[in-house]
């Protein structure tokens, strides 16, 4: 009776009901195990750790409730790190998206060699973050960098090793450059999804090329743009450790120390485990908030009808 019963059940409710009570749990067990071992357990550890304070020699720990959070949130270095992170993330996301959109629009217009442009523009995505960082570091190194030499010959006193703003510009360039390819791919796909007849209709409605872009194409790209905004911000926030580590190491001073980099610095370099854990818990809260926003807005498709 088994098969016939299941088949009828599918056709009636489009839902499979297992006769066995344990089998379904067995089937999801591997996934649950992975999530438990690699997410919930470490997250729980971090949460617990964030409420502990260790003595300077690491011999004993004391449970201090939220004292670490209070300390971290009152620390001017942490507040500076928040500011650095916001500036860095927004700048990286905006630069990466604006340049990618520009490139995508231009690549779409190309009559010949469209495929070649696309392939070449997608390549940087295959470069590892630390390598990308080193690449930019060498190019803009004040003593040996060829582009730094060019900048100096243009009369710009380029020195990312001493000047915090310069270091931030270098960091944003390296991080954005790496992300442009990804954004480019999505923008190209988004542009291709805009129906050609809409553009033609707008042309016949008397809209010039620039006007067509801003009134028709850009609004229709809104879902793509919003998605990329979230992805890029998350990337800049959490995936740029390698670039920061390779290019500036958080310096000069603490001018490029992002939240993620500070977690590493406090935890693994300075060995203040309680503070570091509290910071990573705060970061986790930010990730959850950002993910919630993404799910809420990306799921709702704004313009396509």
């Amino acid at each position: 009776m088994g098969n016939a019963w299941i088949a009828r059940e599918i056709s009636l409710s489009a839902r499979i009901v297992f006769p066995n009570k344990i089998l379904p749990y067995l089937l999801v067990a591997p996934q649950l195990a992975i999530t438990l071992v690699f997410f919930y357990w470490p997250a729980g550890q971090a949460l617990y750790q964030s409420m502990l304070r260790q003595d300077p020699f690491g011999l004993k720990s004391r449970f201090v409730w939220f004292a670490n959070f209070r300390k971290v949130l009152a620390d001017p270095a942490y507040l500076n790190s928040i500011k650095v992170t916001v500036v860095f993330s927004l700048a990286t996301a905006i630069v990466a998206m604006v340049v990618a959109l520009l490139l995508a629009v231009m690549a779409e217009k190309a009559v010949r060699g469209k495929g070649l442009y696309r392939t070449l523009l997608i390549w940087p995505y295959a470069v590892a973050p630390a390598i990308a960082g080193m690449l930019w570091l060498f190019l803009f190194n004040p003593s040996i960098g060829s582009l730094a030499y060019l900048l100096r010959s243009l009369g710009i006193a380029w020195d990312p090793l001493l000047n915090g703003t310069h270091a931030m510009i270098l960091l944003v360039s390296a991080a954005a450059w790496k992300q442009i390819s990804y954004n480019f791919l999505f923008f190209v796909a988004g542009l291709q999804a805009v129906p050609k007849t809409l553009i033609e209709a707008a042309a016949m409605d008397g809209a010039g090329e620039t006007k067509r872009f801003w009134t028709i194409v850009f609004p229709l790209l809104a879902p793509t743009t919003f998605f990329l905004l979230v992805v890029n911000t998350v990337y800049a926030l959490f995936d740029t450790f390698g670039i920061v580590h390779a290019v500036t190491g958080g310096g000069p001073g603490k001018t490029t120390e992002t939240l993620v980099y500070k977690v590493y610095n406090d935890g693994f370099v300075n060995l203040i485990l309680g503070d570091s854990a509290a910071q990573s818990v705060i970061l986790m809260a930010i990730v959850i908030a950002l993910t919630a926003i993404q799910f809420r807005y990306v799921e709702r498709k704004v313009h396509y009808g």
Partner: protein
Amino acid sequence: MATVDLKDVRKIYPSGVEAVKGVSIAIPDKELCVLVGPSGCGKSTLLRMIAGLETISAGTVAIDGKVVNAIGPTERDIAMVFQNYALYPHMKVYDNMAYGLRNRGTPKDEIDSRVRSTAKVLELSALLDRRPRELSGGQRQRVAMGRAIVRNPKVFLFDEPLSNLDAKLRGQMRIEIKNLQRSLGVTSVYVTHDQLEAMTLADILVVMNAGLVEQTGPPLDVYEKPASTFVASFIGAPPMNLLALTGASPSSVLADGTVIGLAPRLGKAVTLGFRPEDADITFAAEAPAGALALPATVEAVEPVGAESFLHCVAAGSRIVVRVSGRASAKPGDQLRVVARSEKLHWFDQAGKRVD
């Protein structure tokens, strides 16, 4: 408003394919010209060249006496209704209609009054705040029409605007388009592959085939005097019956040797045609003088209600006869298909009409 003149217009694609091979059409002011033909005959390409969406390889397109070859679609002051409507999905109905006026810098209050009065004519007033995806197919069609009308352009272009609607709505919109076009008095070009739409809408009917114009004229003239076997078989449903005549003999003998009771054929004609509604059936052995009398076997009877279509085999060809009401014949019957000689059409070797 405006006249539209096409002179020897050609479209040659970079691949070397010639989609339009020299078309000349003169559309007088306020008239509706329908371009009809099978898929790939170049009618849509021609329309897009008038719109300015395709470059013109050779020849000239003139609107209101002014050659517009070098003028882009933005400046031609033409409105087009697309097959898929091409409504801006992120704009409300109101903004869809106002878009063209805003682009031309029309004052705000004038835009408002024009959009609202157009919406009233098209019964869209209650839908102005909706987005296109919240509308039915017929309503979207109206918005597309409204967007064209509200601008009061020199010329309307329609690219198969009714092909996405169901049959009933299509019939309704056809009449509405005709009435609107007439009351607004805007010169229009309408592309369709549906010969019924073409016949009912056109002031001037242009039948196209393989990039060339087969025939131009008022629809009934085209129907009554098709210029070629192509037009004869394309216009009219069911199409005209065509029978091949023998090459050598000047008498009325069909290609398979069937002698038909008829006066000698006209000149060099090799094809004989008659419309299903111009023929009748008789069971009498004697053929009436001076008329076609073709021995035939009934294969199938299609009763449609007011009329019936008899599908017969005669002289090796399939022919259709329309009789009003119920048919007295049934499948398998042997009978004669008769048609009066003035209702016959003759075509020469090249398929051209012989009179």
